[in-house]
């Protein structure tokens, strides 16, 4: 029953590896999942974007057979979550929001243990543990207890543990929440490599930037319901791609500036926002050309710019654009915003 196979993975075929229909899970009065539909095509990454409490983790737990949904169906790699839980567990890998490794065990022992629990023969389990430690750059820390690892190392060990059985479908539940930007990048690189190997990924995240980095399709959920879905570029177009943040030297220029952009029709599908707190105008732009045109228009008016930067839309902005209201649960962490300084 060895599940290791080193045959090259095929590219996305369009077939659905994860199919979820009308999934419902209630906790008392709280509807954690309120009729969720989604599909993850084989060999692709689906991002599930939503604020805290949107139901992302509940979804992952249903799909990993950790909890039983109240209604609806879900199949993963052809197995039904309710009727074939044991078969299903053989084809999934799970990386939880909080690193699910045994902190008291050394890294190597963590991987060896999972290998044995996945029915690998001793020799094979040892080989696999060595191989994955190497791959995730943890060989040097192999003998140290995981409790001594840094946050990034722990997530890498967690990813390695999910890969022991070469799963067909991998769940990444907020894989970078709580990590610093450099470590987040590190984890992204690893995920990209796994995706390149052809594994199908369901990724939950609070960060638009993370979804953009890793996913090809996106499902946005709020209060247990899917509120938008589609290819990332389509959604980005609806949301407004990037946001250009311009702070004029003279705050009195704020409103004229915003009015000018609306007049010129230079902005993306979303509208210009005046951010009074930081005395800046937020202009959604769809393309590099639009960005250039906006900067050109400001220069043409002779308005002095104190600072200018582009940002990816935050989760709040995505929600605002898609639903017309803010994300329903207040964030307890600041969603990371990507700043790309523009040389003005």
């Amino acid at each position, binding site marked *: *029953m060895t*599940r290791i*196979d080193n*045959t*090259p*993975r*095929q590219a996305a*075929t369009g*077939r659905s*590896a994860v199919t979820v229909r009308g999934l419902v899970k209630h906790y008392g009065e709280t509807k954690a999942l309120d009729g969720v539909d989604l599909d993850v095509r*084989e*060999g692709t990454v689906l991002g599930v974007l939503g604020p805290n409490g949107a139901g992302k983790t509940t979804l992952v*737990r249903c799909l*990993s*057979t*950790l*909890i*039983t949904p109240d209604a609806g169906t879900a199949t993963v*790699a*052809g*197995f039904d979550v309710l009727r*074939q839980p*044991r*078969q299903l*567990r*053989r*084809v*999934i890998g*799970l990386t*939880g929001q*909080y*690193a*699910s*490794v*045994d*902190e*008291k*065990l*050394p890294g190597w*022992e963590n991987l060896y*243990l*999972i290998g*044995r*629990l*996945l*029915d690998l023969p001793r020799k094979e389990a040892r080989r696999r543990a060595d191989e994955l430690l190497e791959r995730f750059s943890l060989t040097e820390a192999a003998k140290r*207890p995981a409790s001594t690892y840094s946050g990034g190392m722990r997530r890498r060990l967690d990813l390695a*543990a999910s890969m022991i059985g*070469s*799963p*067909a479908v991998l769940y990444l539940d907020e894989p970078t929440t709580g990590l610093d930007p450099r470590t987040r990048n590190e984890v992204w690189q690893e995920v990209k490599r796994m995706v390149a190997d*052809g594994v199908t990924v369901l990724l939950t995240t609070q960060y638009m930037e993370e979804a953009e980095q890793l996913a090809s399709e996106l499902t946005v959920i709020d209060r247990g319901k899917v509120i938008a879905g589609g290819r990332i570029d389509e959604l980005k177009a609806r949301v407004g791609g990037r946001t250009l943040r311009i702070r004029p030297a003279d705050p009195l220029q704020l409103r004229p500036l915003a009015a000018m952009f609306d007049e010129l029709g230079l902005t993306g599908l979303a509208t210009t926002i005046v951010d009074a707190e930081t005395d800046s105008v937020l202009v959604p732009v769809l393309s590099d050309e639009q960005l250039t045109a906006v900067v050109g228009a400001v220069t043409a008016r002779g308005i002095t710019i104190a600072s200018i930067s582009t940002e990816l839309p935050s989760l709040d902005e995505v929600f605002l654009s898609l639903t017309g209201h803010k994300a329903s649960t207040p964030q307890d962490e600041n969603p990371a915003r990507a700043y790309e300084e523009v040389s003005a």
Partner: protein
Amino acid sequence: MSATTVEAPLAVKGDPRISPRAHLRHTGALIRRNLLWIRQDPESMFDAILFPVIFTLLFVYVFGGSIGQSLGGGQERYVQYVVPGLMAMMGMNMAQGVGTGFNTDFNSGVMDRFRSLPIGRGSVLFAKIAVELMRMLIATAVLMVVGVLVGFHITNWPGLFASVGLSAVFGSALMWVFLTLGVIMKSAQSVQAMGFLVLMPLQFGSSIFAPTRSMPGWLQNFTEYNPLSSLADAARGLMVGGPVEHGLWVTLAWSLGLTVVMAPIAIHKFRTKS
């Protein structure tokens, strides 16, 4: 998995069962995990080693003289009385620890991973019990050494081993109770408090430390069917002589009852807790 394997998922598709050998392998791998914990954190063995030392010295030197007198002897007489009693307590003490330890373990992320793996859900619990029984045997060995040092005479070796076995049987039955508490209760502290509340009266309302003759009638009735009394009496009978049968049967009945009722509950709760 290549795309073709998704179409025809795996050889195991038709057979989701887990073979007895696989069960053993999984339990073995998890026992190794629990043993590695002890290696990483040797201090976790302190209770198993210190508990029998402290209890033996405490009871023999503090209460030994006066209780011994009522037994028609002295401290030497009491040593013969209390050491088998303390052996009955070893299983109980380890069982209590298993609940708190498991609660902490259960609330860590690694349990989610175990529960999402294709293993028998009982394996995690069986491994825990196996390791706790090993700890219990160590504690019992320490108890016997200290016991002999303070004057305990081992007269009946087969009886000694039989009482260790009986104590292990009852201890593992009790572990199912505490594993259940460990799974369903929210924090390790509450498991500990609960264990204390239940076990204190059982422990002292028994014949472990003192003969029940001088206790009031209602308490004697209680001790009669208190499994800890029965276990202590049976161990005493087996090790130093005296009636064995009543204690033995009551203990076995309790062990069987607790296991039959609590083991499925513990496994079910472990399986379904969200």
